[in-house]
């Protein structure tokens, strides 16, 4: 991918996302969720989206707000049901949104496969369960595996800690989660960061997502949100 664009606003960053797109959305619960990009996507108006994300939204912010706005046709995720996933729950129980439950490891590995040019792989998870239904299976070295196909995104919306001006990314703690995998699995990767630093100021040994995977970067104000489960 050619040189990364540094944009001024989240609205510019999400420009051009088409109706019907498959959008990979980073985050594990709230950690690493690209709130500003999702809010901009709601303003931008794209609809009939397929969302790939670990969860299906918390409270009424981020992904939950996108769902509430009625822009999502289908969700692929591992864990939609959470204590504060009522927006999704209502849509699902009303039959207004499709759900495909994917074991978390398959979700990650299938996106990794998309980024790595793997056509399909035999994975060890879900053998003998209802989530194996309809999947090809194969015994290799005496163990049964299921054939899993890549999950590609038209877009990825992710959050990282810092970018340099070339678009190299570093993350913070467990907010790293799906960001690096989604960045490589999408045709266009859009990243919100807490800050853009000069090229050369990130340790080359510690860059997690090289700029080749990053198309658009926007710096946002530091996030403020309530942490679920905090005591």
């Amino acid at each position, binding site marked *: 991918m050619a040189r990364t664009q540094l944009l001024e606003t989240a609205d510019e960053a999400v420009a051009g996302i088409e109706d019907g797109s498959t959008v990979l959305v980073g985050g594990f619960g709230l950690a690493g969720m690209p709130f500003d990009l999702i809010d901009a996507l709601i303003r931008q108006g794209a609809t009939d989206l397929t969302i790939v994300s670990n969860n299906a939204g918390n409270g009424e912010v981020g992904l939950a707000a996108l769902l509430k706005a009625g822009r999502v046709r289908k969700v692929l995720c591992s864990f939609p049901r959470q204590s504060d996933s009522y927006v*999704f729950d209502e849509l699902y*129980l009303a039959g207004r949104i499709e759900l495909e439950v994917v074991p978390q490891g398959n979700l990650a590995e299938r996106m990794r496969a998309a980024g790595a040019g793997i056509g399909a792989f035999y994975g060890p*998870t879900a053998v003998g369960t*209802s989530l194996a239904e309809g999947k090809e299976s194969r015994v290799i070295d005496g163990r049964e595996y299921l054939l899993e196909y890549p999950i590609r995104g038209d877009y990825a919306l992710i959050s990282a800690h810092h970018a340099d001006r070339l678009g190299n990314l570093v993350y913070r*703690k467990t*907010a790293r989660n799906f960001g690096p995998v989604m960045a490589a699995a999408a045709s266009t990767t859009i990243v919100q960061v807490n800050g853009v630093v000069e090229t050369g100021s990130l340790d080359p040994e510690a860059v997690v997502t090289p700029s080749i995977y990053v198309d658009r970067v926007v710096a946002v104000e530091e996030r403020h949100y309530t942490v679920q*489960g905090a*005591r």
Partner: protein
Amino acid sequence: MTDLFHAGTAEDHPVETGTVEHLDRGPLTMDELAEVIARDIPEGSFLNLGIGQPTKIADHLPAELGVILHTENGMLGMGPAADGDQIDPDLTNAGKVPVTELPGASYFHHADSFAMMRGGHLDVCVLGAYQVAANGDLANWHTGKPDAIPAVGGAMDLAIGAKDVLVMMTLFGKDGTPKLVRSCSYPLTGVGCVSRVYTDHGIFEVGGESVVVRATWGISVADLEERLGMPLATVA
């Protein structure tokens, strides 16, 4: 309290002792059960604790044991839950609860984290369960009720990934129905994956020719056989 751990200290591991019936007390509380399980975690293990009750086990692992906690959202070396100023929204466990970082921690992305699990590198994981079958089948992700929203998370990956998969649960449901069963009626998480089941009423080895009871609390082996409706082997 020493008696509580008769079936569980590192020095006096249940595998090497006969079955013990603790009839002088009632069933274990979940905190006591967490302590029993903690005593069975080998020194220096890489350990994943499932969401819910199993997270209590961490409170009972002495630092000198050198056990390193994995959380599937991308970390080894997870510390205790965060309090007050320690809370950092970028640092949570798999249950999305804020946690802390210990010296020697490392972070990695989700594909690397699940590669670690699925590649068989974790020594032990402890999961909650709706049901465990005598053959080691695990059901812990879905009640199978038509109106339930399915949510599997990392449960199926953990079930097949760790070298040793332990279950921590109450032995009976709120209505008294046994959760250790001949065959699971709930949708499966993994096939034949559980090696040992830790419950308030007893510890059971599963996946072999017969279910072996290692210890009981507040109930005899004979009464357990009756309530579970299955034969239980003991160790002399």
